[in-house]
């Protein structure tokens, strides 16, 4: 479904993404595991086309078409969406309206279901504004609900667990699995091995490139043993992919 080939991004002379190759299958939850500063959010922006990021080189192929030249809207209309690590707040836009404009051929009553799936009580949230009165965790869960409402072909989830308390984390992981059951492929970007447990495959990101891909348990263990204690962050050693 998604094929990223030799992707490169150089900003102000600094190589941020460095020959990255990535393949996400239809129906797959693909975890991207990386420490801070390895380029996780940059990959999300490059695939979604946000933050004005354009690849210096390489291809982003989605369902057979190179989408690198498309706008954010065009990519979304093709079925890709992004849940931000720190979602925006929009004064005057209610949760109901936000979910409704995200909704893909759904019925109005389903908006409530999407909120329940992320552990939010619809009666308390549907008519609230997506503004500063929401906590970071509430805003993140609403972002997940809007992705569920959209039913994208590919959901890019950038650190969906950040700002989520330990009690709510299982709900969030369940909602990602539900999203996958609904038919969405998921690119699950995180620095937490716990979160990648629900993935089908996990890739490890270091210095803007994928250095290893494999089954979740094995790859997460390798990440824990090698990346958590790594003294050469952003200087990957030669490792088999």
């Amino acid at each position, binding site marked *: 479904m998604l094929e990223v080939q030799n992707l490169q991004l150089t900003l102000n002379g600094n190589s941020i993404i460095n020959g990255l190759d990535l393949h996400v299958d239809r129906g797959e939850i693909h975890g991207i595991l990386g420490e801070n500063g390895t380029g996780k959010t940059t990959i999300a922006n490059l695939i*979604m086309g946000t*933050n004005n990021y354009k690849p210096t080189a390489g291809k982003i192929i989605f369902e057979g078409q190179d989408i690198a030249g498309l706008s954010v*809207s065009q990519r979304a209309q093709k079925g890709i*969406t992004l849940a931000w690590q720190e*979602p*925006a707040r*929009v004064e*005057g836009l209610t949760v109901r309206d936000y979910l409704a404009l995200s909704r893909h051929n759904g019925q109005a009553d389903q908006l409530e279901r999407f909120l329940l799936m992320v552990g939010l009580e619809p009666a308390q949230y549907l008519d609230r504004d997506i503004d500063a009165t929401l906590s970071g965790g509430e805003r993140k869960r609403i972002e997940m609900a809007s992705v569920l409402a959209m039913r994208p072909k590919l959901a890019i989830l950038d650190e969906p667990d950040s700002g989520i308390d330990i009690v709510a984390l299982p709900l969030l992981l369940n909602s990602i699995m539900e999203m996958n059951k609904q038919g969405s492929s998921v690119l699950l970007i995180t620095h937490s091995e716990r979160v990648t447990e629900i993935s089908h495959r996990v890739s490890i990101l270091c210095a803007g490139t994928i250095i290893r891909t494999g089954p979740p348990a094995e790859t997460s263990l390798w990440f824990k043993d090698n990346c958590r204690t790594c003294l050469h962050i952003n200087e990957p050693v030669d490792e088999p992919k």
Partner: protein
Amino acid sequence: MIRYSVEKEYQGMIDAYEMAGGDKRALQTKDVAKLVVHENRVLANDPIKGLKIETKETKSGVSVKLIVEEGAKIPRPVHLCFGLLPKEGLQEIIMKVDAKDNSEVSVIAHCIFPNAVKVIHKMDADINIGANARFDYKETHYHGESGGIEVIPKAKVKVNKGGVWQSTFALSQGMVGKLDYDFEVVCLEKAIAELTVKVYGKGTDDIKIWEKIHLNGAGARGLAKSRVVLGDKARAEVRGETYGNAPYARGHVDCIELVNGTEAVATAIPIVSVTNGKAKVTHEAAIGSIDRKQVETLMARGLDEDRAVDVIVKGILR
């Protein structure tokens, strides 16, 4: 009661009222208090128990005296409709409001000038909110698309002990033209004032907003809030002033102006002043372009860029 000779004129106002977002059924329902004024002619004046509306036609407009009797709780919103259907003209509204002690009323005013090319609409209001009375006032304008209108709403409001004044002035449909909004509120002990202005300027619209709140009584509270979005070559200057002059008075000035484009000009002048050591007044003012991340958030759900900006603008002016 509707004058037969102006029935057609009245229908024109009702149609324009609906076009401006008003619910015309409210103007046709018998148990809803209403006042409809076209140019300097009173087309309908239907008071209700607990509420008197006295009017006097003048050469260039109408003098209106609106009295809410002591302790009266008006169950349904009172509808005021002012307007001018011709392309040119002057309408001056002199308004005196006396909401007596312990009364409660909500007033919805629609000011409609759908064909304005050279129109002046002035309102001078003198408003007294009695002790523990509550007065909600929402004024919405519709000016058509030519921008040939000058609107000058001015009000002096006194809110007595424990009273509440809440007003919203909204001008987000059609062109603004030239706006010179000037509302000044004095709050006595434990009185509350909330002023909100929401304006969408386009073309060469010229917008001046001046909100002043004097917190003169102990425990008085005030909020001067403005939301302005500008496009094209529109200009706006927003002055929000709050004065904390009594112990435990609390005030806040909250101004956001969004500039969409490269030629619009936005200015914000917040003034906060405290003359009592136990008072506290704060302010926040933000001027900038529409947040790119907000736009991209909506685009990532499939909206095109123009629609995303529209959703954000409508939200901020909601």
